[in-house]
């Protein structure tokens, strides 16, 4: 059944401080909405539970890209179009630029925001594996102040996160220390454009003397929320890249992955493809080392 616009209040206080005061005055009552690429879909289908929505669209304090010497800070209302068209993102955080280009269509990218992608918390969210392997920190704001949380600890369950009812995701901090890392990102969906992931894998790793040093692996759709693959990382750290370590990493990934069956794919398919993507990344590392 179609949603009724008369059943939902929507206000636009126009400033970050006014929004925070509203959230503090009536904690848990108001649902923030930015580009509407998720909530307006729910609204159209008549399954938008929130009766009171507060618009963050057009608040400049939430839409910014700040490039510091050792970090990039992205405001929560930064759109994927903003990310795709910023040279610093392309240069320093290439996986994020790539992931931003995966989000829906041009019309979706001009409205969908990084903060919305994270707070919505879909296990398949396109930006998420990248943020995990770039070791992102989430800055959370309320009238009580701000706090930083590692992105790897932001999600606590399916569509659940650490935000208190009066808090807002304010910004994403990305350290600029991955220039010498090998980087990998691949998404598997039903078609190249517009498809939501069946599974996606991101990786950053340092290889010296044919031995893997620091390594981060993360996946979309391998659990109830986007996750680091800590066991597969442990299986690889300190190892030489080769058939043995590839096999043990595959085994570790299959042991820790907890994908679901849903309309887009099956758990078994997601496991097998994720393991294959990991193997593809490791073979890229191996080839690069052989060539070096």
């Amino acid at each position, binding site marked *: 059944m179609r949603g009724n*616009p*008369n*059943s*939902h*209040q*929507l*206000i*636009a206080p126009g400033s970050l401080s006014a929004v925070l005061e509203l959230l503090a005055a009536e904690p848990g009552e108001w649902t923030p*909405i930015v*580009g*509407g*690429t998720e909530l*307006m*879909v729910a*609204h*159209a*289908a008549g399954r938008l539970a929130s*009766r009171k*929505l507060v*618009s963050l*669209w*057009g608040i400049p304090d939430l839409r910014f890209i700040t490039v510091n010497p050792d970090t990039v800070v992205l405001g929560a209302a930064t759109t994927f*179009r903003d990310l795709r068209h910023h040279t610093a993102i392309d240069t320093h955080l290439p996986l994020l630029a790539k992931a931003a280009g995966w989000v*829906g*269509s*041009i*019309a*979706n990218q*001009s*409205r969908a925001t990084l903060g919305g992608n994270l707070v919505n918390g879909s296990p398949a969210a396109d930006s998420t594996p990248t943020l995990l392997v770039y070791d992102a920190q989430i800055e959370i704001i309320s009238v009580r102040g701000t706090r930083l949380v590692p992105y790897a600890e932001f999600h606590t369950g399916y569509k659940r996160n650490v935000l208190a009812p009066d808090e807002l995701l304010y910004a994403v901090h990305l350290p600029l220390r991955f220039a010498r890392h090998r980087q990998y990102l691949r998404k598997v969906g039903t078609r*190249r*454009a*517009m498809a939501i992931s069946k599974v996606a894998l991101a990786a950053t790793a340092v290889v010296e003397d044919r031995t893997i040093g620091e390594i981060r692996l993360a996946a979309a759709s391998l659990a109830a929320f986007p996750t680091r693959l800590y066991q597969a990382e442990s299986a690889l750290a300190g190892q030489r890249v080769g058939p043995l370590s590839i096999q043990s990493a595959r085994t570790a990934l299959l042991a820790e992955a907890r994908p679901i069956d849903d309309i887009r794919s099956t758990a078994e398919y997601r496991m097998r493809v994720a393991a294959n993507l990991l193997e593809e990344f490791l073979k890229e590392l191996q080839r690069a080392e052989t060539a070096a």
Partner: protein
Amino acid sequence: MSVASHTTRFTVNGRDVAVETAPMKRLLDVLREDLHLTGTKEGCGEGECGSCSVRMNGELVNSCLVPVLQAEGASIQTVEGLAIDGKLHPLQRAFLECGGAQCGMCTPGMLMAAIQLLTIHPHPTMAEIREGLAGNLCRCTGFTRIFESVVAAASGHPHLDEQTGHAR
């Protein structure tokens, strides 16, 4: 519960409008029902098909996903804003000449997405055309003639203004 109406002011194709309606009403419905601009079509109603594409402040958006309150102060361009004094926009002529339109359901959105593309890439590659129109589904043409229409328009009219979408 029924929410109070709210007056939202914006421009459509350069004309000032004020609409009194529920703030959560979709821009698509405001265009069609309140402003009687029925060129913008509804396909899926969930941001997948692109039929309802319009330009908002020079960016392509799905009007089915924009609550009208967020259009406050915005400059909206719809397919009705392409032809001037009955004279078709060069892109519309190209669609006619190349067979880029068949049933017409996707055409307004396809035109707006193509305008957006041409403001950014005046001479787009085929890859850029495919990406620029990837969010607009057509069940008739098989897309080839649409792509050819965009190529034809681009070759004839190199520069479109970023805000207005019209030839400079």
